[in-house]
């Protein structure tokens, strides 16, 4: 077993204080946005505006998780767009099907 010898060659670098601080900042933003969502849930009347705000804030949170935590923002542009473009079509699918549902509810279908 050369296990012990291998370990001797490993150099452990000190924590990157700046990077860690940035990660906690992102966590703080995610927490604050969720808190705002709670506030809106109990203070605003239901309607298209409330739904739009919720979806907007969700996209903000998703952006921070995918961009910072999953590091996609810093990847090569080809990879970035390979992931993002298919999801844009999914958003269109959601819009189209919800519209379809409203049409069914109105008895127009």
């Amino acid at each position, binding site marked *: 077993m050369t296990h012990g010898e291998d*370990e001797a060659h490993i150099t452990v670098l000190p924590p990157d204080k700046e990077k860690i601080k940035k990660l906690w900042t992102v966590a703080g933003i995610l927490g604050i946005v969720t808190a705002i969502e709670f506030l809106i849930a109990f203070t605003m009347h239901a309607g298209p505006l409330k739904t739009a705000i919720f979806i907007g804030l969700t996209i903000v949170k998703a952006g921070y998780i*995918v961009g910072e935590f999953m590091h996609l923002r810093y990847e090569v542009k080809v*990879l970035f767009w*390979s992931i993002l473009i298919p999801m844009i079509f999914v958003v269109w699918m959601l819009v189209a099907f919800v519209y379809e549902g409203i049409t069914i509810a109105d008895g127009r279908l």
Partner: protein
Amino acid sequence: MSSTTTVAPGRSEWDGGVSPMGVSYGKLMMWFFLLSDAFTFSALLVTYGLVRSSHKAYEGAVDAFQFSQAYWPIPEKVFEAVPFLHGISAPLVFVGIMTFILIMSSVTMVLAVEAGHRMDRKAVEKWMLWTILGGLAFLGCQAWEWAHFIHGAEAGDAVAEGTTFFGANLAHNQYGPPDFAAFFFFITGFHGFHVFSGVCLNFLIYYNTVMGTYDQRGHYEMVEKVGLYWHFVDLVWVFVFTFFYLV
């Protein structure tokens, strides 16, 4: 990384020999797996959007809301129970705690990845343990949430003339149309299964770290790959939280 590798004249970087995406094979395949997994979750959420919007919405005052088969329920009136606080109405508080737990475990995961970059085995072990703990706490919360949803609240509700029904199953539920419970079970269930798989993978990573596998390999890229999966699980919850609980 490899994206900066010089390409021979007359050849494109897509002709082979270099990685145009700038990431390793394993990480790239994890990204594409997650994209396909996102399609599956999107399919569930899009179907939810279609079915929900094709049902009647409740239009009266929120305070006067009562469960009925005639319209889709307001989620904050369904999910208002918290463990140990029996009979107290605390709308969305418990699901807020669950959201917080999952976000925190995502943070500890990214700290484990950061420690992996520095070859700091002790720190990776510490943060992986916190991440596993967060995942298990979330699963425990979800088990309680499901049990409460299935058993029902104090008073049942009529599913048909002259009958009373408590809680929920796939055919009937006291909260609203049958599809409401069906979507709750399928969407949160499919997500919960992902959390469960994530906890298993995280444990595997923790085990390998403790055994010194990644020290011998010379890099901690497996922590990054499983980290991507774990963040994805958190990401899906952000959308489930919005579309199922808030809107």
